[in-house]
């Protein structure tokens, strides 16, 4: 079946460096992609999203890039801080009207920020 997955299960980053988290997806019909951050014991927190008609979107310290040619999504975090330590998930929202909102999540990447 079609799925969303992540390349790296764990990413160690030094405080102040930039982080890049990657995600591969296989459903070319997806309309909308979202990045979530999940801290231990908490629910996923919305970070940033991007629609399939865009290549790049920037937020506060975060940038999401979408490469539809190779079905690849990435999240860049600038100047990583200790508070960025968490599990990061990419999620896909199907384009079909009868499936929107049925988010499909990848397995997640654990980001560990070291001093």
């Amino acid at each position, binding site marked *: 079946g079609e799925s969303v997955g992540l390349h790296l299960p764990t990413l160690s980053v030094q405080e102040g460096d930039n982080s890049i988290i990657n995600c591969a997806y296989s459903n070319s019909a997806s309309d909308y992609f*979202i990045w979530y951050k999940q801290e231990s014991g908490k*629910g996923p*927190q919305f970070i940033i999203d991007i629609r399939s008609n865009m290549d790049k979107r920037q937020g506060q310290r975060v940038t999401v890039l979408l490469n539809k040619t190779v079905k690849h999504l990435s999240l860049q975090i600038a100047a990583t801080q200790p508070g960025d330590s968490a599990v990061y998930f990419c999620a896909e*929202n199907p384009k079909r009207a009868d499936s929107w*909102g049925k988010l499909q999540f990848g397995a997640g990447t654990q980001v560990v920020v070291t001093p």
Partner: protein
Amino acid sequence: DAGVTQSPTHLIKTRGQQVTLRCSPKSGHDTVSWYQQALGQGPQFIFQYYEEEERQRGNFPDRFSGHQFPNYSSELNVNALLLGDSALYLCASSFLGTGGTEAFFGQGTRLTVV
């Protein structure tokens, strides 16, 4: 705005019992989705409710059922609990008018089946 709230936060049940989890959506949201998250994995879609009806469903058995009330709040019921039902159950709310974008999650209910 309290965001999405779930209750209880933790729950321990015995195999074979039944459980009900509750969710209040973010103010202004009309759609509620439920997800199951096993330890170390991404959330898995259970089902979604809109206008008090189940709109779509994931690959979960009929033991999992739900309800949405006129105030948009929702319940998730699981019957005949199995050990494998132990997980974090997440509720997400969104607004149909935005196509379900910007789904906001609650903090989850940690269910342990013993």
